[in-house]
């Protein structure tokens, strides 16, 4: 592959697509698949064939368009008409209407905050490119950033751009990506590794899956750039086995990139070589922790080990290793293409760029959104999310999964960035955002997360293994109406202990859901303990009096 060839592929593909007068994009990401997106795509392709329009109309499968609640989604270019809740029976009407106006009964209003308020960087190709076609990605400026790095930048200059962008790790902790890269690059070793953490274990977060399913090449390109910057020639992508479509699309993408010479030896005729292997997770939440993930790639149980040494010094097989999250890598190509300063102009002072959130729970528009950092929770939930359905009342929003916390109504106007969320007792996490209304009992929510941490604890260190078990027992007792004030005090004491003495992030952050609900919804705990009643009528308290909600 030469630079000229890359340009040619892009131009040819663009022409190939533009020769069709109409282009129908059908979402075939996992969300829409579960509402029948694949069948809609088949029906549309068949309908186009029956009406003899194959030369004028292209039907292609694309990645997630975001509004999963209204899936399957179909968008028709060049008019940008979006249809929602499409069934295979609607195919005839959609194809018939190509030359006239849109099918009114299926139309999804694109002039609504859900679409207008989003700023897309990571998801810019989602819903546009066919994830199974590398040419489509190249036509969307794909691999241009890698070419630019290899031909115009020294590794140091690449790191400089990432540093300037202010990008921080999107996996949860928010460590500055550029610093991590420069740390690994400075370690002297002829064997280094790049690892992409796609073990999206947080229940309620599905942004990494969407990126891997809808735009896999973006992640490969980011990893290759990282490899060049730190001096590694081998990378691993660690993906959950629960994401079969992401695995399939990644395998295809890696094969295509190798075939075109965009991965492999001497990329673009330079001395830089880079290969990527896929490794499957096997359903262990703790493997999201970097040292546990490394153990898993090495074929062992996913038990974390104490740090330091950090993976940057001694990671995979004892060699310097760079680990970043899927979304972090997906940000790299646009940063290189447009410059670090461009990225740094988006977001807040300390949290730059955009963040993808998975909006779920009791909110009207569930789905995937990408918003600039600094947006308020209220804007996300009530404007983009469309508010709480069924006339219910907002109660809390849970961010950061089992390591995060519940944020009550009074803080809805806080900006979303790493520091503000931390101040509220929650974390950014990987970007799951679960909205709860008054039908949720916060003590039960805390118990739910503790049950999760208890069963996901790897068992290596005592505070986490025994502490999460004990905390769960206490919460169980409280939700059954058998708790006492002493239990509450014991619970708080345990939270403090587990937080401060656990070996890895799983244990250290496992008390967060309890601590944040204790902080903001203490009265609910008290009514369970003192009044023996569950205000939300969720907990089955034996012999309790009914509470009028």
């Amino acid at each position: 592959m030469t630079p000229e060839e890359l340009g040619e592929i892009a131009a040819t593909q663009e022409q190939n697509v533009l020769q069709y007068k109409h282009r129908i994009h059908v979402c075939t990401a996992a969300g829409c698949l579960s509402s029948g997106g694949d069948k809609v795509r088949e029906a549309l392709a068949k309908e186009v064939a029956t009406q003899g329009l194959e030369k004028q109309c292209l039907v292609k499968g694309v990645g997630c368009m975001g509004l999963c609640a209204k899936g399957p989604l179909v968008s028709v270019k060049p008019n940008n008409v979006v249809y929602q809740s499409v069934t295979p029976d609607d195919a005839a009407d959609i194809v018939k209407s190509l030359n006239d106006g849109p099918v009114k009964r299926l139309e999804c209003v694109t002039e609504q905050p859900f679409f207008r308020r989003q700023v897309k960087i990571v998801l810019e190709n989602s819903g546009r490119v066919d994830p199974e076609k590398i040419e489509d990605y190249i036509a969307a400026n794909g691999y241009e950033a890698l070419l630019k790095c290899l031909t115009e930048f020294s590794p140091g200059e690449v790191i400089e751009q990432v540093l300037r962008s202010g990008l921080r790790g999107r996996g949860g902790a928010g460590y500055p990506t550029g610093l991590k890269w420069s740390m690994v690059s400075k370690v002297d070793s002829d064997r280094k590794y790049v690892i992409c953490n796609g073990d999206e274990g947080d229940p309620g977060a599905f942004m990494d899956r969407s990126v891997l399913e809808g735009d896999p090449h973006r992640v490969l390109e980011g990893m290759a750039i990282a490899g060049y910057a730190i001096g590694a020639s081998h990378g691993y992508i660690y993906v959950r086995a629960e994401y079969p479509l992401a695995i399939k699309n990644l395998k295809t993408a890696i094969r295509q990139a190798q075939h075109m010479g965009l991965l492999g030896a001497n990329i673009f005729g330079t001395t830089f070589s880079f290969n990527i292997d896929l490794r499957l997770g096997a359903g262990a939440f703790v493997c999201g922790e970097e040292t546990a993930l490394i153990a898993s790639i090495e074929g062992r149980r996913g038990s974390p080990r104490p740090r330091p040494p950090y993976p940057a010094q001694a990671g995979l097989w004892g060699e310097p290793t760079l680990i970043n999250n899927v979304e972090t890598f997906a940000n790299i190509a646009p940063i290189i293409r447009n410059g670090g300063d461009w990225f740094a102009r988006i977001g807040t002072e300390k949290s730059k760029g955009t963040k993808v959130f998975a909006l779920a729970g009791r909110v009207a528009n569930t789905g995937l959104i990408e918003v600039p950092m600094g947006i308020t929770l209220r804007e996300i939930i009530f404007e983009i999310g469309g508010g709480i359905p069924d006339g219910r009342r907002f109660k809390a929003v849970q961010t950061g999964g089992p390591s995060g916390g519940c944020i009550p109504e009074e803080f809805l106007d806080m900006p979303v960035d790493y520091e503000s969320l931390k101040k509220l007792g929650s974390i950014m996490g990987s970007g799951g955002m679960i909205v709860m209304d008054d039908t949720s009992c916060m003590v039960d929510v805390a118990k739910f997360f503790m049950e999760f941490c208890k069963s996901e604890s790897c068992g290596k260190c005592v505070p986490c293994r025994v502490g999460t078990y004990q905390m769960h027992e206490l919460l169980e007792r409280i939700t059954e109406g058998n708790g006492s004030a002493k239990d509450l005090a014991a619970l708080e004491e345990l939270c403090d202990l587990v937080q401060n003495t656990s070996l890895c992030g799983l244990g250290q952050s496992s008390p967060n859901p309890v601590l944040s609900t204790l902080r903001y919804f203490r009265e609910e705990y008290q009514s369970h303990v003192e009044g023996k009643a569950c205000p939300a009528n969720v907990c089955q308290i034996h012999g309790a009096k009914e509470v009028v909600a």
Partner: protein
Amino acid sequence: MGTSFRKPVAPSQDKRWRIVDATMRRLGNESHALIEALHTVQESFGYLDPDSLRYVANTLRVPLSQAYGVATFYHFFTLKPPGKHTCVVCTGTACYIKGAGKLLHAVEDKLGIKPGETTPDGEVSLMTARCLGSCGLAPVAVFDQQISGLMTPEATLEKVGRWKEHDA
């Protein structure tokens, strides 16, 4: 070290062992191929039995205890044969908020089994998943690899009931 190593013989003549062999060979029969090899065994045979664990461990030259440790550490691996049909109820946060517990209780009551168990006639296995990533359509359940969103207890029972009828 130094002693010659002879690759063990597959537990049976079953052709599926060749797929397992291919996975291990692709990774150089190295110890780090353990998880990938177990994935292939489970994909080919449905579960991991003691023979397959022993075979994989011996081929990759890892202690059987390590292979067993890995197989039991990760939730994805199962040591019991699955039923003819599987029903997976997602118990992730979004599904929990939207009532996954009710789905699960409905199926538990109907089949008389707990998550991780199979009906005595070997027909249906009930499982739970941590999160299937279809949170936008919560609550979700998977029936024989087919994922369905926005489930109700009634719809879930209907799907499970259909298996029972067909086989009766």
